[in-house]
């Protein structure tokens, strides 16, 4: 076969394919077709194997050939992927390989082998002809786009945005550093196979697929996960190694015609439509479902006879399908709750969501569900359970959510995907029909308008003088005062008001394990407002949230304090986490407007600055304790390398009568007292040493990277912006030491009869 290579990027392809990662992703895939819902919930001992069989009859497209007649709703037909635009998307060689041996090419695929009875050569010829035909129906691309993107980011995305809820994670990938699951569990439920993406897709084709899988495969179970084009490129690069494609064939008309013929004979059209020319090829019809003998013969035999599709069914799958066929005469239309369950099985919603005690992330995959909202714990990581969701959410909200339009939990790293309008509309109906049953007491909203809540009451309740929702919940984009739970802004657009009321009264009965307390325990109001009327209080919150954009923020959020520390009469000593002074920082603010920070871990002066001192908000008010930074200007970073002694141990500090701290530490054999305080807009440092070897030298100033300490006179030195004057003792010997591109100003302390040495110096900058 003559291939025309369009690629002047051949070397890039070669380079990138080395790092193609599909193979790195744990790939012990069973050989039978993987239908996620079946894998997870059906075993040989299942009493409901009929349901599993019905799921397979639909998911494996059996009913595309075997008409399910009156059971269409139970066992719907599903299309296969569209075969449009293949030359742009796929590699020709892969397509031939795939059509000749789908199960070898992608173990676990749902596509049956249709050429199984033929000789090797015939298989290859047929597959090539089919591929020619399929490639002939769409235009060839002028050229293929070069791969671009970040492989590492693709890897991160793959393991965090939800891909691995269904697909296998890479074994070497270490998810969730610092998470509670330090010992991840084995994954037990078979993953949906990826196949060899590197051989299958062009980079452009894979990017296009990831951006909108539903476009290429309307009935696929792969939803559209919201992502940017550059994220899709990163993912594609990670998954396929950025393949440019194996080149495009020169199309031979007779082969194309043969392919078209085989396409019709093999009844490919039962599942696939061919795009491009918009051609319509009829599919053959097989025996209707109701007329099939429920036994291990035909497609259901161990090795199906030639010319029948070979699915490589597992014994359990065969058993389930036979059970479903046997049960068919008795099968009744599904009730709403069963429809919801079947629908969730088919779309594998259970991979992420639990409902009525089943499903939710399996233990081995839980670790890939992460949160950026520390403190929210499992409620921040795991997609919400869907038990009673139809009672909770308005139908129009369910529709928006299933279409991936409403991500109100930005802290969750997984992304709720878009399953398309058709599924969204169905879920909106079936969830509501199933869950909105029984008598639900109406809220005052309904017909008792004189009893409804009022926005000012709601404002009072939501704030710190009320029940204090904003301690934990964000509000209209404003940070909560503590943990960052879901923004309450969304409530009225999404929730049934009755659910809102009932949930507030008893959160745990709706969401077992939630840490939301009840502020109306047993329905009784604790707050005095509105005569302690629970219904009106809760309705007031509802009204306030509804009118949020026209209202003032609640108390506590509106009047966040000003936490600037202003030393006025005496120094302020303030310990905190501080940028460039470390996690053991002790900052000292002086009324003179010159401030310093001591690092009590390294036991060294770290910073000095002028102007405003510090803002304590990060330390006093922000739960997440961000690093403090000097508020002022002229920030001086004390040069490293001029600490006293090598081995230092911090001992604390003393305050003098004016409140100036003297830092105490052990440095080698010396006991050190170290005081820095302002003098005329600069700093004076006093060091007192006791009990050490008098002959030892002491570092005062350092400079690195070949830069020099300049001697200005015999008691004044400069190092960049810093000038140091040794005031006392006047007679001390000094020297400048050279060491590997660094310079150190050293001094020999003079000890008195009591074994005490005192050094005083001024630091200007």
């Amino acid at each position, binding site marked *: 076969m003559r291939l025309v290579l369009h690629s002047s990027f051949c070397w890039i392809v070669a380079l990138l394919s080395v790092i193609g990662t599909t193979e790195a992703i744990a790939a012990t895939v069973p050989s039978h077709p993987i239908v996620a819902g079946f894998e997870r919930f059906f075993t040989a001992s299942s009493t409901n194997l009929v349901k599993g069989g019905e799921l397979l009859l639909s998911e494996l497209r059996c009913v595309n050939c075997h008409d399910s007649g009156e059971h269409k709703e139970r066992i719907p037909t599903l299309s296969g992927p569209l075969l449009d635009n293949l030359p742009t998307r796929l590699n020709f060689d892969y397509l031939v390989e795939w059509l000749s041996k789908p199960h070898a090419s992608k173990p676990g695929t749902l596509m049956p082998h249709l050429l199984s009875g033929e000789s090797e050569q015939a298989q290859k010829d047929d597959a090539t002809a089919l591929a020619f035909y399929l490639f002939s129906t769409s235009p060839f691309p002028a050229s293929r786009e070069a791969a671009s993107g970040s492989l590492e980011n693709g890897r991160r995305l793959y393991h965090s945005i939800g891909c691995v809820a269904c697909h296998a994670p890479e074994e070497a990938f270490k998810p969730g550093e*610092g998470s509670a699951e*330090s010992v991840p569990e084995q994954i037990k439920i078979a993953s949906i196979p990826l196949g060899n993406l590197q051989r299958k897709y062009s980079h452009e084709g894979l990017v296009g697929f990831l951006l909108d899988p539903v476009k290429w495969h309307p009935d696929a179970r792969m939803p559209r996960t919201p992502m940017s084009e550059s994220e899709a490129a990163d993912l594609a690069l990670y998954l396929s190694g950025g393949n440019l494609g194996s080149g495009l064939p020169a199309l031979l008309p007779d082969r194309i015609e043969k392919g078209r013929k085989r396409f019709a004979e093999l009844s490919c059209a039962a599942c696939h439509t061919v795009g491009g020319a918009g051609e319509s090829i009829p599919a053959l019809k097989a025996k209707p479902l109701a007329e099939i003998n429920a036994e291990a013969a035909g497609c259901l035999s161990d090795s199906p006879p030639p010319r029948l599709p070979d699915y490589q069914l597992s014994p359990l799958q065969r058993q389930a399908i036979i059970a479903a066929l046997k049960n068919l005469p008795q099968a009744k239309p599904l009730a709403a709750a069963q429809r919801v369950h079947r629908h969730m099985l088919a779309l594998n919603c259970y991979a992420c969501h639990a409902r009525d005690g089943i499903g939710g992330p399996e233990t081995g995959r839980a670790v890939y569900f992460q949160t950026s909202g520390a403190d929210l714990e499992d409620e921040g990581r795991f997609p919400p359970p869907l038990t009673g969701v139809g009672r909770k959410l308005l139908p129009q909200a369910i529709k928006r959510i299933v279409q991936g339009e409403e991500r109100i939990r930005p802290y969750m790293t997984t992304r709720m995907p878009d399953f398309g309008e058709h599924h969204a509309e169905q879920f909106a109906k079936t969830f509501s029909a199933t869950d909105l049953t029984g008598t639900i007491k109406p809220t005052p909203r309904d017909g008792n308008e004189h009893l409804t809540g009022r926005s000012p009451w709601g404002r009072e309740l939501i704030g710190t003088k009320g029940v204090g929702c904003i301690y934990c919940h964000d509000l209209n984009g404003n940070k909560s005062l503590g943990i960052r739970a879901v923004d309450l802004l969304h409530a009225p657009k999404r929730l049934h008001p009755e659910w809102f009321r009932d949930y507030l009264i008893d959160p745990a009965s709706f969401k077992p394990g939630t840490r939301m307390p009840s502020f109306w325990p047993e329905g009784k109001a604790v707050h005095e407002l509105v005569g302690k009327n629970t219904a009106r209080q809760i309705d007031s919150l509802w009204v306030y949230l509804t009118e949020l954009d026209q209202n003032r923020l609640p108390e506590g959020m509106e009047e966040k304090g000003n936490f600037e520390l202003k030393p006025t009469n005496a120094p302020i000593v303030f310990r905190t*986490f501080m940028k460039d002074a470390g996690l*053991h920082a002790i900052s000292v603010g002086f009324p003179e407007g010159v401030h310093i920070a001591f690092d*009590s871990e390294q036991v060294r002066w770290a910073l000095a600055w002028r102007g405003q001192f510090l803002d304590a908000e990060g330390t006093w008010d922000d739960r997440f304790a961000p690093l403090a930074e000097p508020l002022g200007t002229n920030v001086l970073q004390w040069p490293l390398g001029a600490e006293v002694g090598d081995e230092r141990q911090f001992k604390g500090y003393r305050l003098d009568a004016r409140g100036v701290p003297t830092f105490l530490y052990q440095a080698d054999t010396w006991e050190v007292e170290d005081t820095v305080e302002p003098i005329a807009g600069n700093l004076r440092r006093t060091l007192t040493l006791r009990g050490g070897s008098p002959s030892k030298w002491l570092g005062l100033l350092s400079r690195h990277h070949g830069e020099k300490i300049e001697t200005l006179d015999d008691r004044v030195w400069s190092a960049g912006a810093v000038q140091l004057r040794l005031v006392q003792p006047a007679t001390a010997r000094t020297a400048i030491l050279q060491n590997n591109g660094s310079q150190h100003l050293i001094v020999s302390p003079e000890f008195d009869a009591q074994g005490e040495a005192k050094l005083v110096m001024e630091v200007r900058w």
Partner: protein
Amino acid sequence: MKRLFSFFLSVVATTSLFAAEEDYYKAVTIPVPDHIKLEVSGMALLPDGRLATANRRGEIWILDGVHDATPTNVTYKLFASGLHEPLGLAWRDGALYTVQRTELTRLRDTNRDDRADEYLTVAKGWGVTGNYHEYAYGPVFDHSGNAWLTLNCTIGNTVRTNDAWRGWSLKVDTKGNWQPVSGGFRSPSGIGLNREGGVFASEQQGNWFAAGALLHIQFGVFHGHASALKSCDLPQATFKKPASLPQNLTIVQAAREIPALELPAVWLPYRKMGMSVTDVLCNTNGMKFGPFEDQLFIGEFTMSGVNRVFLEKIKGQYQGVCFPFRKDLQSATVRLAWGHDGSLFVGQNNRGWNSLGTRSYGLQRLNWTGKTPFEIKTMQAQSDGFLLTFTKPVNRESAQASSTYELQSYTYPYHANYGGPETDIQKLTVNQIKISSDGLNARLVVEGLREGYVHELRLPQMKSSTGEMLLHDSAFYTLNQIP
């Protein structure tokens, strides 16, 4: 009209319900001036009767007048400031001690002006990564003068990598040498001794802890939270890292598989006993605080209350029972301390999390009114059941009826998930009941006791000989060992 009537009924019922605890243990609110944000995080009674309080803002205030019957003239003196989130306070040998995020500090006023002028570092060096969750609690001094601290585990973003001993308890000797003792904590926000000097820490419901718990700190013990296992690789570690952590077992099964894992001495079932366990304080006041001598009082954050624990030692291990004690305080209980008159100071703040009540921080005092509530005073394990002791004689008819005793047992899952349901629940039947001649004891013979399980007892119908109902009708006994 009918609606109006039922409305009144509910108001009456509500009032009497709230009044009941208040009748026995009255809450007196200590006024706080507007300019002081008294988010109490530590309390220590000084020998002169003044109360020192540390707060989340790193200040130590010394309060005078807090024991007054109506404390309207309380004075506040700022003793120290600038500390890094001190979460404990203790007075010993003329100095106050507190644990800051990075060190144990000794504070002294050497010139008698009521301001600390000496902030000396007693011990430091445990891992601090800059992660917000790395709270450090303590100190509590034991009977030999050692200081005990506990360190939260790290959750979320870090700035530095040194997380040595996060999730461990530390013991600091009188010379300032410290060593790790036990590991596997998540957020052990309260430390306390029992009468015999055993050291206990409280634990929050969360990952690896399906409910709140009281844990006995002992050398070589693993309490259950996995992130502490990182420090098992350090030479000073006191137990060996388990090769793997079994998940999806019950905690009782897990304790059999992991040699170092010790079950909590007492579980505090989630919601039933509150939602967030804080301080631990032993009642060493004799009868000054009512009939619960030598029992532990335990702070409850979210529900703004105080709970009660009775411990006993069975086969060399502490285990015991918890009871609700007092709720409806003004804010989250974080610290507990005894006043010199045997009243209980409750230091409060709800920073970061919300709590029931009307304030975000403050200080209250619980005074025993002298009236004895009708309560289950103790619940003790027997080889074939339990022995209940009441504070007042029971009504024999109600006490003899087996329908009076609703008993079930359950345990919890051991897993990395946050929290977890009560699992393997079984109802138990009381086969035999024997009431002592003074009516103060009920001896129950129970079928189906299970070791390691929480045994939840409810007595909604129990009456005293004078017809009173129990003030709190539930008890939760953690039966680690059947005697």
